[in-house]
């Protein structure tokens, strides 16, 4: 569901989630658990969602490149760490990894030839992690060294900004 939300937002969409209620107006435990999980994700990663605007490319990755796949795992294909969605806010580009990469994340849409509106990339941070990440850029894309520990569930946000 988080992945669906990220995918929709990367394409300039809004997502409206239906929470059905019981006859007496309460909602059931499964729904509460679900909403609490989503809230946890939003606490860390919400800045890549709210008040963002789409980038010129909504995303990349093997699932997206399958013919006719309009959004993430529409055909039941599991997303991988190579499946990435983009959003922007001011002078920040957010790259949301739909799976946890081992050691390195590679963003093919950001080769050294790609000119970003905020200039050169100066800093790459993982939301939920304390330290900025090491990165390098070449013709193949942007390579980011990931920390050893997973920072959460569902999807992982790289906050990419310029040199300050």
């Amino acid at each position, binding site marked *: 569901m988080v992945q669906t939300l990220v995918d929709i937002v990367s394409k300039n969409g809004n*997502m*409206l989630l*239906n*929470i*059905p209620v019981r006859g007496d107006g309460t909602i059931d435990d499964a*729904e509460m658990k679900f909403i609490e999980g989503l809230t946890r994700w939003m606490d860390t990663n919400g800045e890549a969602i*709210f*008040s963002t605007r789409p980038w010129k490319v909504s995303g990349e990755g093997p699932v997206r490149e399958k013919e006719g796949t309009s959004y993430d795992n529409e055909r039941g294909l599991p997303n991988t760490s190579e499946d990435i969605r983009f959003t922007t806010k001011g002078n920040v580009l957010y790259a949301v990894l739909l799976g946890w990469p081992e050691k390195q994340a590679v963003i093919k849409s950001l080769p050294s030839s790609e000119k970003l509106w905020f200039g050169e990339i100066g800093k790459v941070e993982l939301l939920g992690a304390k330290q900025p990440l090491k990165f390098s850029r070449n013709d193949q894309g942007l390579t980011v060294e990931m920390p050893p520990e997973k920072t959460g569930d569902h999807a992982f946000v790289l906050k990419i900004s310029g040199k300050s």
Partner: protein
Amino acid sequence: MAISTKESYFRDCHVARAPRNDTMFNAFTLDTRTIASRVSFMRGMSHSEWRKIMAFERGAMKPIAACVLAGALCLLGFAGAGRPRGTGPAGQTQAAAPGPYQPSWDSLVQQYECPEWFRDAKFGIWAHWTAQCVPEQGETRRARITNQSARWSRPWSTSSARTVTCS
């Protein structure tokens, strides 16, 4: 972010909606009241009786669903489409409040601008309380069993691979 802090979302929504057209709101509340009156005799019905009622509701709900969708998409000019207007409870003629839109695509396309708050919002939750919530049957119940999206959420998700409703 706590999801419940989207108060401003709803407040702004109301502000954006009120000056334009309040027909949608009226249509929705009226029909909700009708539904509420039906609920009382739906308790304790057999399954086959319930199915008959739901088949009827499916037809009757379409205009309401259309109104809800229209609201969600901020297409306020569609308000009340599919519902007879202009007559009051006792058959007296009532003039609809004048709005900026004519009932045509051109009028919508030329005049409508998506408000910034809607572009910023990105995520919303809606809950519907309808007759089917009482026996916990109907489309929502089926969605729970088959892991498919409930009827009203289909415009956002046509896939059976995920459940956007979390019932």
